[in-house]
């Protein structure tokens, strides 16, 4: 099965919050489905932090599970701006079923890239 890497980041946050959110989301998504790995990564290679990006490695069948996990995490956060492989979206007051759908579409689009 082919695996893809999708990066998720938080464009409207300061680096410290970005690091915290990334660590939390990586913990949430890691192992959420077979073959899914999520790690934090630094957005610049010259900084002395753990990274405010989440790099998610997944196969196409895991897209739904990752979208669901991501949606659950966003609901816990309340409002959050996320960027999935450079596509930025602000998710605020989005209905539960729509949230998962939007994320699924975004992840699918990111994989197609």
């Amino acid at each position: 099965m082919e695996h893809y890497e999708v990066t998720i980041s938080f464009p409207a946050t300061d680096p410290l919050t970005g690091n915290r959110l990334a660590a939390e989301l990586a913990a949430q998504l890691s192992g959420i489905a077979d073959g899914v790995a999520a790690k934090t990564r630094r957005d610049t290679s010259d900084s002395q932090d753990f990274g405010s990006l989440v790099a998610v490695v997944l196969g196409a069948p895991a897209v739904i599970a990752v979208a669901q996990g991501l949606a659950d995490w966003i609901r816990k956060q309340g409002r959050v701006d996320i960027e999935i492989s450079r596509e930025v979206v602000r998710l605020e007051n989005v209905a539960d079923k729509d949230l998962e759908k939007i994320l699924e579409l975004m992840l699918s689009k990111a994989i197609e890239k």
Partner: protein
Amino acid sequence: MPALVLIGASHFPGLPSMAHDGEGALRGAHDQVIRELTDLLRLRDNDILDLFDSAASATDQLNDFANWLRPMAAALSESETLPVLVYYIGHGGVDHQRLDYFLAIGATSDIERNRSSLSVQSVLNILAEFDERIKPFVILDACFSGSALKETSTFGKVRPVALWTSSAAQETSHFDASSTTNFSGALCHLLAEGSTQHSPMLSVRDLHGLLRVQLQRSGGARVSNPQLHELGQVAQSLLDMPLIPNRAARIDVNRPISVRRTRRREKLEDIERIDNLAIHPSGEFFSYTMEHDLFLERLTEAWPVRIGQHQVSEPNLQLKFEISGGEDAPRATRVPVPNSVFAFEGSHESRITATAFSPQGSLLLSADTTGCVIVWSVARMVEDAPTSRAEGRTLRRFWPHDDAITSIAFSPSGDRVATAGFDEVVRVWDVRELQSDADIEPISELEKKSNIQRVAKHAHDIEQIQAMAFSSSGAHLATGDQNGVVVVREIYSKLEFYRGRVHNAAVRDIKFSPLTDDTLVTASDDTRIRKIDFGVTKPAVSTLGVGPDKHTDCVNSIAISDNAELLVSSASDGWIKLWSLADERLLANVKAAFERGIDRVAFFPRRNLLASDAVFEDISIWEVANDGEFASTEFSPVNEQASD
């Protein structure tokens, strides 16, 4: 004397996502910090606990810290205090569940980052075990290090603590491509350079202020904002405690001054003489010659305070010195070249007679008795070490004179260089042209007795030039010959500005004040040092040192400090003498050589350090300070003052 704990890491086996990003920079920052602080504070082995890149768990590292500190604390008398510098270099992070700030170490694991890392709180808990004679200074070079303030506050309720962080709580810290971190790199630069505006001992507050200016000056979007905090009540602020010697502190010539040897490289008995010591403008390198051979050394790496730290990379090459390290040091007849020595043996076909670094430090020129000059690229010289190959390191080899060259001098701006010697002609060259392959011609030639505007009081049959110097403005060139005659000429018009027989024997060295063209100092085989003041209607010549103060043999070299307050001289009598240039008063002297005297003496730029080459004995580094203000408070045998 403070104690130093280094913690942190450059590689993180348990964090695959960190890969090797910054490994070289973090390691480089560690090496730089330990080198500078060891050097400045004269730390001994047992004053340092180096846990950087340790694979031990956080708990084990903390235990090591406590076990190391206990005997030192126990040895303190009631009135003694011990500043403890806890210096972290690495990656900082925030736990996403508890929001605790943590510091990654070699044992940090992706599975439980927070638990497997060090916390500032856990480090402070160790320090809390000790009483107030232990003065904690926590320095964190990591992202978000300002976040540690919260944890430090808790400790601060019990005990005073100083916290210095590389960035604010929500800010990232950065490293450069390979060599160091922004914070530690800038700090080490400051430690190396010192400040002329501060007292002889710098406090953390002094350093913080200087560091912020330094970082702002370096510019760029990635400049972080170091934070300085002091927590807890204390009679005397930790932040204002005189802690680190200031290498550039202004010496007060009206107070007692001493000169002490801090480091020494002994010469072996069976090798040639050492000559032509020169200090690179950065103070990081120095060069010297032995007959046909040219050497360039990186000072900080090649001259460890402690013996046994050299990393030998080419055991086949032989260094003609041994490291002086007291009675227990190995005394081999030949020791391998450390990787900080760049040896270019046989690069000249005859004895090297003069060397000079360009003011910008990019070039080193060496000249020999055949009239040959080699233009070296300093950057290329230090690309690979050690080596004996000159090929690829030189930019040009040319013969500007028909006879031995005795002197090379760069103009202060670095765009001109003059060469002179036994053929009685001074030639001035465009430095840019020296770096190209094109044919070159001197831009100016100052012939023997050239353009004398009036009848020379001291005409010469022979005018072999022994010493030469540009004035501080670059407009004038002074030469001294083997008969003691000093000539000052305006370079472009070639007009003689001054001609006088200042000495009764050869002029060995000549220097203008770095601040004015009005003051020229000369040194001679006649044992005298003369100062010529051109700022008066008729140039006035005075003598530095009479009676017991004067040298008793040929004065071979003089150097003037950056602020033009101090003059140092070295002579064949083996003495180094320090003078007040303004009032021509002897301030301090030290017997530095016992065989054939000293060839060169030089000030390190912007520092109160001298270097000397005792022709048949050693190269030494000397510290100049007002009494009671030496960086060193204890001296090993190698560091003892070699005075009477």
